[in-house]
């Protein structure tokens, strides 16, 4: 008997000793000069032409440069690998002068031929390295007819038609320039062996653990302050928050709204917020059902308490939206536009005026998805608001990919209303793809609610071929005015991206593009 007791005690002692011994290394802090970033998922690839997720772009913009970039803190286009450019009178020829002092991380030279290689690879099905795709966002450049190297440091793009968002699209990560030599060397595995010209060069990729990038000592711009950045994929938001609290990461993006208060309580953390080019809205079905009547659509806009949604459901991580173009596009945004106020009485009046009583509405809600914020909770709150003024709302909930499969082909015969969110890089993109008559689903667009207004169509077409930013801005402001009045959507929210860092991180700021520029960040 005494023997068993002894054994048990010995076991306990051994167990405790073991636990304490394991505990020691965990207390170590992350090293200075090395920034550890909590990402929301494992990147798909580190090939800018092959990926679509913001999560991947956040790494890529640190490894690569584009011909142009978004200027710090804005969505306006500024020089990067191209020092300057000329646009022909008719808006179809873009000639870029390139920097002559840039080499890729693998040592090969950056020049006009490299630029040509990049766009040919993406767009020309006969290109020998087209098979390193697929390139899902290459349609951003579908307006390109030819790309040619005029001389070693001059490259000319000829477009098949004038296309004003072309420069914005070049600044988008799909336009980042990769090393042709590295593509030739690694072929399909280039996405795991990236080489660009950016402030950081690729170090290693340990699957599902970390992507490590190191400072590029030969960077053509200001050398980065950090020695290295480690991107850790932590898909579970609670675990990501726990890592931040435990000191396992220095910086995290997309902090769950409910976790923000945890970080607000102490000075040990810094919270960042930045409104981005994002719109969260409800598509209304204009082809059939109650929303064919403009008064009913406006009633829905008055009925939904947007302020409560962004303050309570989203805990302040979004702002109330006024129209189809988010304010992050400051140069094209219509400042005079006021959001539909929350006014249930006005909504009831409009319903009475329209002569409908308790209109029945089928509402498609998704469980979650890119940029959808907290769609189930928002859907439920919206349902309650609409029912309060007399709508009779039935919610149908779908998993994200299933949801897209239902909504993108159009709502006809299925639903009267659906949640949707978009993040774009140019004020043109969202209205062009979702509000034009020529963008109805049967035409291959995303106008799933079948909105149609000839005036809007004309204005958008005009804005596309205008090459002056001021002229474009004027046209977009007019579009916003008309669309708000027509109310083909319920305009709900513009997401403010957030991030949290610990006190050791300095010089960080979020960009309206939702990208993560780490060149100026330091950590002690």
């Amino acid at each position, binding site marked *: 008997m005494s*023997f*068993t007791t002894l054994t048990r005690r010995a076991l306990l002692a051994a167990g405790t000793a073991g*636990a304490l011994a*394991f*505990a020691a*290394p*965990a*207390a*170590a802090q*992350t090293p200075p000069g*090395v920034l550890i970033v909590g990402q929301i*998922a*494992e990147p*798909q*690839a580190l*090939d800018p032409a*092959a990926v*679509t997720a913001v999560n991947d772009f956040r790494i890529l913009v640190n490894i690569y440069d584009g011909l142009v970039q978004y200027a710090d803190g804005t969505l306006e286009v500024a020089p990067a690998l191209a020092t300057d450019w000329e646009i022909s009178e008719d808006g179809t020829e873009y000639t870029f002068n390139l920097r002559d002092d840039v080499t890729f991380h693998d040592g090969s030279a950056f020049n006009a031929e490299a630029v040509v290689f990049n766009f040919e690879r993406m767009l020309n099905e006969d290109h020998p390295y087209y098979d390193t*795709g*697929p390139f*899902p*966002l290459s*349609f951003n450049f579908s307006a390109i007819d030819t790309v040619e190297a005029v001389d070693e440091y001059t490259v000319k793009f000829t477009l098949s038609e004038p296309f004003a968002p072309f420069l914005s699209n070049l600044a988008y990560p799909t336009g980042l320039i990769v090393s042709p030599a590295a593509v030739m060397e690694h072929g*399909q*595995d280039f*996405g*795991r062996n990236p080489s660009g010209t950016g402030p950081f060069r690729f170090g290693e990729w340990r*699957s*599902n*653990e*970390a992507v490590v990038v190191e400072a590029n000592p030969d960077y053509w711009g200001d050398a980065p302050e950090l020695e290295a950045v*480690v991107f*850790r*994929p*932590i*898909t*579970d938001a*609670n*675990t990501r928050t*726990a*890592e931040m609290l*435990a*000191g*396992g990461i220095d910086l995290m993006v997309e902090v769950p709204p409910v976790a923000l208060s945890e970080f607000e309580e102490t000075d040990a953390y810094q919270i960042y917020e930045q409104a981005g080019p994002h719109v969260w809205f409800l598509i209304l079905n204009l082809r059939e059902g109650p929303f064919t009547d403009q008064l009913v659509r406006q009633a829905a806009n008055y009925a939904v308490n947007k302020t409560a949604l962004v303050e309570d459901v989203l805990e302040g991580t979004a702002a109330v939206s006024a129209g189809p173009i988010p304010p992050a596009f400051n140069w094209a945004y219509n400042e005079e536009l006021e959001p539909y106020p929350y006014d249930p009485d006005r909504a009831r009046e409009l319903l009475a005026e329209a002569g409908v009583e308790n209109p029945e509405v089928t509402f498609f809600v998704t469980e979650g*998805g*890119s940029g959808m914020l907290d769609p189930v909770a928002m859907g439920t709150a919206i349902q309650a608001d609409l029912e309060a003024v007399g709508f009779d709302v039935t919610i149908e909930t779908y*998993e*994200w*990919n*299933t949801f*897209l*499969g239902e909504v*993108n*082909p159009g709502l006809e015969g299925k639903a009267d209303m659906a949640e*949707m*969110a*978009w993040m774009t890089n140019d004020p043109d993109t969202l209205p062009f793809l979702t509000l034009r008559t020529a963008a109805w689903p049967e035409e*291959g*667009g*995303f106008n799933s609610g079948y909105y149609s207004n000839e005036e809007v169509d004309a204005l958008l077409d005009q804005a596309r071929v205008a090459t002056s930013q001021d002229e474009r801005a004027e046209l977009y402001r007019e579009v916003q005015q008309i669309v708000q009045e027509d109310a083909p959507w319920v305009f709900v929210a513009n997401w403010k991206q957030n991030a949290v860092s610990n006190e050791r991180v300095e010089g960080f700021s979020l960009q309206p593009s939702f990208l993560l520029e780490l060149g100026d960040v330091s950590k002690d």
Partner: protein
Amino acid sequence: MGSYILKRLLSAIPVLLGISVIVFLIMAMIPGDPATAILGSYATPENVARINRDLGLDQPLVARYFIWLGNMLTGDFGRSFSLNRPVLDEVLDRFGATMILAGTAFVLCSILGVAAGVVSAARQYGFADKAITFVVLIGISIPSFFLGMMMILIFAVNLRWFPVSGMWPIYGGRTLWSLLDHLIMPALALAVVATGVIARLARSAMLEVLRQDYIRTARAKGVHERSVIWRHALRAAMVSIIPVLGIQAGFVLSGAVYIEIVFQWPGVGRMLVDAILTRDILLVQGGVVFVAACYVLFNIAVDVAQSLLDPRIKT
């Protein structure tokens, strides 16, 4: 014995073929396709068609199945589009991580569960029995992902004894020590439920055996009680405990999915969840077939072990 093993191995082939058909059909029927998942809100019919063509998804269903099966038989599981690397590389990487986690949890729950069951049975209705039954009931009732989150909150965030998540330290070498450091919490969280189940079954199996005549004879002969329980009774009881262990191994493996997500363990469960959400068809199919094959093999091993222990089971 050799022919028995061979027979069992042969019978596994139709099982695996069936699994390959089922997982293939499920992935074909699941709403939403890879192109939509890749393109998100940019999924115009035109773009979807282009991506489907690039991925070879424009072929007829039957042709796709046989291309996949044929390639798999030559060891080519295809390429994961969401991770941009060969499926087999990814599955092997991830399966190794899962085996470390699930294997540790399985060893833990087997030893703890059997020990708890034996002690309970030996002290039937005594204090130890009641205490163990109480703890076991709690263990069975707590969902493992909740337990995992609580462990993270207490031992990683507040006490900082262990790292929150991951399998290896982000900095510093990959030592056995650092692995154990990351492994303890997830392995314990994963083992808890199975430990409870095994303990309860081990207890009743032991009680059954302890009532047998030969045990009474052994005691009458003056064999030490410890020896009676651990040597005579447990050996006999193991015959009915081992199949339970086999079944629990399956539960541990599937339970690993939650634990891998909570603790961000780079295992095959988390891989499958991500792959399903991104509609990475080849990765899901390859992963499921691989895991199923391992599970089938494991079950054969359990049956063989059982027949070795109990000569009454015909081979």
